[in-house]
C-alpha cells in the first residue's frame, strides 16, 4: 500500500500486540505476515462506488438500551477464583513500574 506510512517491523507489531516472540518466531511470523498481506492486497483492486458505506456488522443502527434496574451479578469471589493471583478482593499484578533506584 504505497501511500501509507513506513511499514512497522514485525518486532514493532509484536510489541504493540504485547506478545513476546523469540528471534526464530519473529522471522517466521514476519514471513507469514508478508504472505498474508500480499494475499489481502487484492482488495486494492476492488473498485468501490464513491458513496459506499462500510458494513461493520449485521445488526445495524440499533442501540440496545434497557431499564436501569439493579440486577444481581456473579459474586466477586467466583470471578476471582479464576485469577492467577488475588488477595480475595483485588487482582494482584507485578510492579507496574520498575524500581530504577537500585
Amino acid at each position, binding site marked *: *500500500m504505497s501511500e*501509507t*506510512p513506513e511499514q*512497522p517491523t*514485525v518486532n514493532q*507489531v*509484536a*510489541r*504493540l*500486540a*504485547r*506478545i*513476546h*516472540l523469540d528471534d526464530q*518466531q519473529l522471522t517466521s*511470523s514476519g514471513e*507469514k*505476515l508478508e*504472505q*498474508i*498481506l500480499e*494475499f*489481502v492486497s*487484492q*482488495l*486494492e483492486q*476492488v473498485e*468501490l462506488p464513491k458513496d*459506499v*458505506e*462500510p*458494513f*461493520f*456488522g*449485521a*445488526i445495524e443502527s440499533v442501540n*440496545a438500551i*434497557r431499564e436501569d434496574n439493579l440486577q444481581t451479578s*456473579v*459474586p466477586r469471589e*467466583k*470471578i476471582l*477464583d*479464576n*485469577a*492467577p*493471583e488475588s488477595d480475595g478482593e483485588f*487482582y494482584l*499484578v*507485578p*510492579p*507496574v*513500574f*520498575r524500581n530504577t533506584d537500585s
Partner: protein
Amino acid sequence: MTLSALNADVIVDQLNAGEVTATDCVQHFLDRIQIHNAELNAFIRVSESALEQAEAIDQRRKSGESLGSLAGLPIAIKDGICVSGQPTTAGSKMLENFSPPYDATIVERLKSADAIIIGKTNMDEFAMGSSTENSFFGPTNNPWATNRVPGGSSGGSAACVAARLAPVAIGSDTGGSIRQPASFCGITGLKPTYGRVSRYGLIAFASSLDQIGPMTRTAKESALLMSVIAGFDPRDSTSSKEQVSDFLTGLETPLAGLRIGVCRDHLNEGLDVEVKTKINDAISVFKQLGANIEEIELPQTKSAIAAYYIIAPCEASSNLARYDGVRYTFRAQANDLEEMYRNTRGQGFGDEVKQRIMLGTYALSSGYYEAYYLKASKVRRMIKQDYDEAFKKVDLILGPTTPTPAFKLGQHTQDPLAMYLADIYTVSANLAGIPAISVPVEPSSTGLPIGLQLQGRAFEENTLLRAAHQFQNETLWHTASPSEPWRTQS
C-alpha cells in the same frame, strides 16, 4: 436398534415413552466415548455430572413431573462455550484451567429443556482454524479416515456426531466453523442468522461474525435444537428481537415453486471435480423436488476471503487483548507488568492465534486503518449488496460447502493461505450475516463426505431447514456412518 444409531428426535420420543431411561442413554454414549475418544480426540473433557443429571431426570419423570422438550438427551458442547463450573478452554493453554462462573445463554436454555451436557468438544484454539489442528489439546481425527482432519474450528463437535459419540452437538461459526467441519464429517450443520442465537457466554473471536448453531445428523434435529437455543437475550445486545417461529413446523411443506439460485462461478475455479459432480447431482434432486433452479451472480464474493482475513483478525486482536495474565488463570513469570503481558501472551497463545493477533494489530496500527479495515468493511458492504440483489430473484442459494473433501492431517499446517481457502464458500455468509446450512451429498469415490451449502435470507432459517429436510427425505447420504473400527487411511 442401538441408541447410537437413532436420531435425537427419536431418542427424545423413546425417553418420553419410557422405552429407555436417561441414565441408560447417557451411559451408552459415555461408553462409546470411553472406547473411541482416544483415537478420535473429539472430546477435551467428559462431564463428570452427566450420569447424576440423567438419574435426576429419570426420578423426576417417575414422579410425574413435567419435563423439558429435550429431557434426557445427551448433547456435546464446543469448548469455546461457557458451562458454569466446568473447565472451558477454547482449545487454548491460556484457558487450560479456566472455569466459567456462569452458563452461556444457550447452555442455560439447553439445561432448562433438560438436555444433558455430556462433554466439551475439541476445537482450533479460540476457533481460529479450519482443521482442529490448532488445539492445545492435540488434533481431532476424522472418523471417516483418521489420517484426515475433521475440519474446524468445531472439529470435535463434528467428529463426535459423525462417530455417534453424542447424538447431537453445538458449534460456533465465524467463517465456516460449523459448516466446513459438518461437510468434512458428513453431518448437517447450521449457522444461523447473526443475532438469531445469543452469543452470551461464547468466548469471543470476531464479534461481528461469531454465531452459535447446531451440528446434527439431520436437518430435523437441527430444527429441534434451534427451537430451544434461538431467540432474543437481553444479555447479548446484538441478539435480535425478530420473532422466533417453531423451526419444526413447515419442514414437510413441499419445495414446489421454491427458487434456488446457483452461482456458476462457485462451481468452476478451484473446485474438486468430484465435489462438482456430486453438487450437480444434488441440484437434480432439488429439481425433482419441484424447486426452480436459476443462475445468479455474486461478483464480490471473490474478495470475501481477503476481506474476512482483515476483518476477523482485527476484531480478534481487540477481543483477545483481555488475555493478559491478570484475570484468566494463566500467567507467565515476569518482573514487571509489561513483561507479564508479553510473556503471558507469548507462552499462552499458540502460533496461529499469535499470527492473527499480529495481523489484526498490524492492520489497525496507525495509518493503516483506511487501507485495510475500512476498505475491507466497504467490500463487506458490497458482498452484502450482492446477496440482497440475489435474494430478490431467489429464495435460497445453493453451492458446495468446501472446495475439496477433508484434507490430510499436516497437509496445510505450514501454508496458512491454503488453509484459509478451505473457507472460500463459507465466509461470505458470516460477512453478510445471513444463515447457511451444510448437508451431506454423495461421498467421494474414496468414501470421504462432501457437503452441499444452502444460504438463505436473514432470519429465514425455516426455509433452509425445510429445503435441507426435504433433500434428506429424498436421499440417504445423511444416514451413512463411518464404519468401526475407523478407517485409518484414505
